[in-house]
C-alpha cells in the first residue's frame, strides 16, 4: 500500500498544519510516512505545498511527480497542480476560491465550498480542516478519530481551546462528502 497526498494553497491557509496532522494520524495508525513541505518565504500571501506519502512498508521517494490524491485550497493551486494528478486519482478542491469548472475528466473531483462551510462552523480559518475532513471521508487511509487524536498531538497545548472548532470543521467537511455521494 502506498498513498500520496499533495496539498497546496496560499501561505496562511493552513496547508502545513493540516498535512502534518494527516501525517501524524497515519504514523499513529502504525504506517510509515514522510511529510515534505515546500513553500515560498512569505508568511502570508505566498504559496505553500506539502507532499505526504504513506506506506505500509518503506516510503521511498518523498518527492512525487504525479500524486494519487490532492487537496487544492485555491484557484492558483488548481491551475498549477491539478494537471499533474494521476489518472483515476482523487482531488479535493476548495470551490469557494477555485470555482467548479475543471479541465480534468479522468480524475474524481470533489468540489466543496470550504470557506463557506468553515464560516458556518464559526471561523473561516478552519478551511484547512474542512478540506482535510472531506479528504478523510473520500479516501480510506485514516479515520476521523485518528485525525482528531493527531490534532491533540500536533497542536501545542496552549492552543487546545481551538480543538473543538477544528473538530467541528473536520466533521462538517466529512459530512459534506457523505451527503453529496
Amino acid at each position, binding site marked *: 500500500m502506498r498513498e500520496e497526498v499533495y496539498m497546496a494553497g496560499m501561505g496562511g491557509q493552513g496547508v502545513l498544519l493540516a498535512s502534518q496532522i494527516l501525517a501524524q494520524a497515519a504514523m499513529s495508525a502504525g504506517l510509515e510516512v514522510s511529510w*515534505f513541505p515546500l513553500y515560498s518565504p512569505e508568511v502570508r500571501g505566498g504559496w505553500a505545498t506539502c507532499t505526504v506519502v504513506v506506506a505500509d512498508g518503506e516510503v521511498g521517494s518523498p518527492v512525487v511527480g504525479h500524486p494519487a490524491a490532492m487537496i487544492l485550497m485555491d484557484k492558483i493551486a488548481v491551475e498549477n497542480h491539478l494537471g499533474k494528478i494521476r489518472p483515476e486519482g482523487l482531488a479535493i478542491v476548495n470551490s469557494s476560491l477555485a470555482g467548479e469548472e475543471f479541465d480534468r475528466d479522468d480524475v474524481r473531483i470533489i468540489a466543496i465550498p470550504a470557506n463557506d462551510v468553515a464560516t458556518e462552523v464559526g471561523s473561516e480559518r478552519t478551511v484547512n480542516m474542512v478540506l482535510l475532513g472531506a479528504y478523510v471521508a473520500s479516501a480510506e487511509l485514516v479515520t476521523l478519530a485518528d485525525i482528531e487524536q493527531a490534532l491533540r498531538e500536533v497542536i501545542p497545548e496552549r492552543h487546545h481551546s481551538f480543538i473543538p472548532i477544528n473538530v467541528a470543521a473536520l466533521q462538517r467537511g466529512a459530512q459534506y462528502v457523505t451527503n453529496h455521494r
Partner: protein
Amino acid sequence: MSERKLINGNEATAEGAIAAGCRYFFGYPITPQNKIPEYMSEHLPDVGGVYVQAESEVAAINMVYGAASTGAWAMTTSSSPGISLMQEGLSYMIGSELPCVVVNMVRGGPGLGNIGPAQSDYWLATRGAGHGDGRCLTFAPFSVQELYDLVGEAFTIAQRYRNPVMILADAILASMREPCRLHERRDPPPGQPEWAVGGPRDGRPRNIINSLYVDLAEEEQVNLRIARRYEEAAQQEIRFVEYGADEPQILICAYGIASRICQTAVQQAMQAGVSVRLIRPISLFPFPEEAIRQWAERVEKILVVELSLGQFIEDVRLAVEGRCPVELMGRTGGMVMTPEEVTDRIVDGRGRLNECLTPGPSAAGRGE
C-alpha cells in the same frame, strides 16, 4: 522499543547529537538549518551543555576547534555558504588531529543561491576541508531516522580517527518530517583523552595542540599518520545499501535524498520491465569502491542520479575504472527530479532499457 516521534531532520540532527553526548554547540544562523541551533539553544542547557551563537561561521568553527582541543564533544551545523566559510577552521582541525562533527544541510548554489535542496557540496565535503593533505570523513543519510542515528555515531567515529566528520544532508532532509525512534540521552565519556590540551596540573605531560610544523619531515610524518587513519577508515567504516534486482541490466548509483527518489524509480522501472539495482553509498569518504566495481562487471551501464551536475559521478567513475559506461542524470540549483523522470530516463516506450540515458546538461532542466 521506544515510541516513534514525527520530527524533521533538523530536530533529529540536534537531538541525535545531544543523545550521543554532544555538549558543546557553536553556530551561526542560516536557512534551511535554523531549527538545529534553535533546538540546541533550548535543550543543551537541560543536560549541562553550552550553546553559543557565534558572530559568524568563521568564529563558530574556531570555537569548535577550541572546545575540541580540550577533548569536548563539540559540533557545528550550517548550510552551503556557511560551510564554505568554515573550510579554513576545518583544515586547521584536521592538521591538529582533532575530532568534531559538522552537519551541512546543502542548499542551492553557487554563491548565496537559494534555500532549495541540492547535493552540489559533494566536492566540498569529500575533497574539501580547506587546504592541505587532509579530508573530512563524510557520511550521507537518506531518512530522518538515519540522520538521527548517523549524527550520533559521527561523534564516535570522529573520536576514533581524531578527524572532523561531515554529515552531508540537504534542504529536504532538513525540513522533512518522518517517524523517528529516539533513544535515551547518554553522557559523553568521563575524563579527557590523552591527547587533549592540559598539563602537569592535571597530572600528565604538557600537550600543545596546533597545526604548525616548521620541520618539513615532521609535517610529512603527521600527514602520513593522518593518511593511515583514512586507510583504516576505509577498512572499518564503509557503508552502503543495495535495493532491487539480483541480475540487473542497469545499476543506479545515488546517495542521500536522490537515493530516496531512486528507490521509487527502481520499483517503477521494474514494473515497466527493466531490471534495475540501486546502490546507495552512506559513507562518501571512505567510498564503497569495491561494491560498485563488482557491479560494473555485471551490468550494461550505470546511471548516476545526483542533485548536482556531475560531482558524485567522479567517484563512481574512479571506482568503475572504465568497466562500463557511466551516465549522469542531474538536477541543480535547488530543483529536484521526480521518480517518474528517473524511470522515463531508464525505460523506453517499449519497456526496454533506453539506449541513451544522458541527453546532455541542456536537457537536465526540462522537467518542470
